[in-house]
């Protein structure tokens, strides 16, 4: 069976530092996959390598049936992958609606704004507010919404719940649940492993740049000693 995303033994570097070692993983159509691991385990670097923000020095990435490891980020994004970065990177000088319009400019298919606003009513209320004037939670909503505008085949979420109030986390978790139930394929990096396991079908555990475990979310819940060993929880 072919997967939406197949990653074969990629090695990524920051300058001279070797960060990812022969990382292999796959993501099926409609699957939610979580990458777990301690700080510095290589989770964010994995996501950046997938979308081409970091270019792997070796290995292969097959996305939607085509080689993606040598493509620039904009070309990978154009083929239907979207990254919601850890630091959100909302455009502060643009208002909410401009951020969303920008995201859809070169999209082949795009979510209408009404559909985005139906999912994030708060963004509709704040559509004329500049990115810099949004709260952390609103910025995260906008970052996710901006990724959805292009109707992506695969969404990469990097620590979407980090630093947010519990009530906001609950709301965003609800949004992610809705997306997953609707068949959206997601790769999720999250420190909050309870939240991650509640969403994910399958889990990879990264340690020092190596994939050390692959297990279903049910297995992960049933084997707390694995999580304890690699995550210290």
């Amino acid at each position: 069976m072919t997967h939406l995303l197949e990653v074969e033994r990629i090695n990524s570097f920051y300058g001279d530092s070797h960060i990812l070692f022969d990382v292999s993983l796959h993501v099926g159509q409609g699957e939610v996959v979580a990458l777990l691991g301690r700080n510095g385990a290589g989770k964010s670097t994995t996501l950046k390598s997938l979308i081409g923000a970091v270019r792997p020095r070796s290995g292969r990435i097959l996305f939607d049936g085509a080689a993606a490891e040598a493509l620039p980020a904009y070309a990978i994004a154009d083929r239907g992958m979207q990254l919601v970065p850890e630091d959100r990177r909302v455009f502060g000088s643009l208002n909410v609606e401009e951020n969303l319009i920008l995201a859809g400019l070169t999209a082949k298919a795009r979510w209408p704004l009404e559909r985005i606003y139906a999912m994030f009513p708060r963004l509709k209320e704040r559509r004329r507010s500049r990115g810099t004037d949004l709260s952390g939670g609103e910025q995260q909503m906008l970052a996710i919404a901006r990724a959805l505008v292009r109707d992506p085949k695969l969404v990469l979420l990097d620590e979407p719940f980090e630093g947010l109030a519990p009530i906001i986390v609950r709301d965003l978790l609800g949004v992610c649940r809705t997306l997953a139930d609707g068949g959206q394929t997601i790769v999720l990096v999250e420190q909050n492993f309870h939240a991650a396991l509640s969403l994910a079908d399958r889990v990879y555990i990264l340690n020092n740049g190596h994939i050390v475990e692959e297990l279903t979310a049910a297995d992960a819940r049933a084997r707390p000693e694995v999580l304890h060993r690699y995550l210290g929880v």
Partner: protein
Amino acid sequence: MITWPNFVSQLVNGLAAGTLLALISAGLTIIYGTLGVLNLAHGAMFMLGGYAGFVAFQATGSFALAVLAGSLFMLVAGAVIELVVIRRFYSRPPEDQILVTFGIGIVLVEVVRFIFGSLTATVPPPAWAAGITSLGFMIYPTYRLVVLGIAAVALAVLYVVLYRTRIGLIVRAGIEDSGMVGLLGINVYRVFMLVFGIGAMAAGFAGIINAPVVSLTPNVGDSILVQTFVVVVIGGVGSFPGAILGGIIAGEILSLTSMVNPAYSDVMLFAVMTLVLFLRPQGLLGLAGRA
């Protein structure tokens, strides 16, 4: 002796020079903001625009056609320079980028010197704008008022492009975070090429409309380069409104100081820049926290 008409005349001079500086600086600031490359060839592009207009004027005899052809030439020249040279330097350290744009500036100046010699080239103002205009209590060269008007209109056009069009939306986002623009599926390299072309065109356009005021020499852009840097620092790096405000402030400082003693005008300009850096390091209208 400073008389009232003399003062007003210098004030208008300052406004005209400032609007022109604002236009050139707007080009510099969007290039730096979007590409992250400090364009030390910007003064040379101002000069090249003037000569492109000169050539077009010689060929057609029409000032309007000279402005149009010279501007288009600079748009294309800027895009080609980005594509052939600048693009290879995005992943290089800033000092390499500074050196390469400095080198491009030297090459442009020397090529122009080779073709046209060091003697001055002149473009006459259009007939309808020659002569002087009486403002009631004083008289003023008509073409200088026209420069002020044309530069203001050009800034307005640039504003509309930046704030009311899709391209402008991409450019404004790119000034903030060009990497994220790429992650949204937009080919940022195409945007970089366009921005460098627009920036070069802004400088070149200013060079053409300024050509009837000064005599063209291959070095006409040297002092302009330094002044535009000051404008961008005062106004805020990457800020289009900042370039306009900074340009007018710089124009007035240069003009009003030279009324008292021309030798102090550059000193005064740097003194004000230093003051701004002390009080507001990001520039008057710059975003805090960016370089």
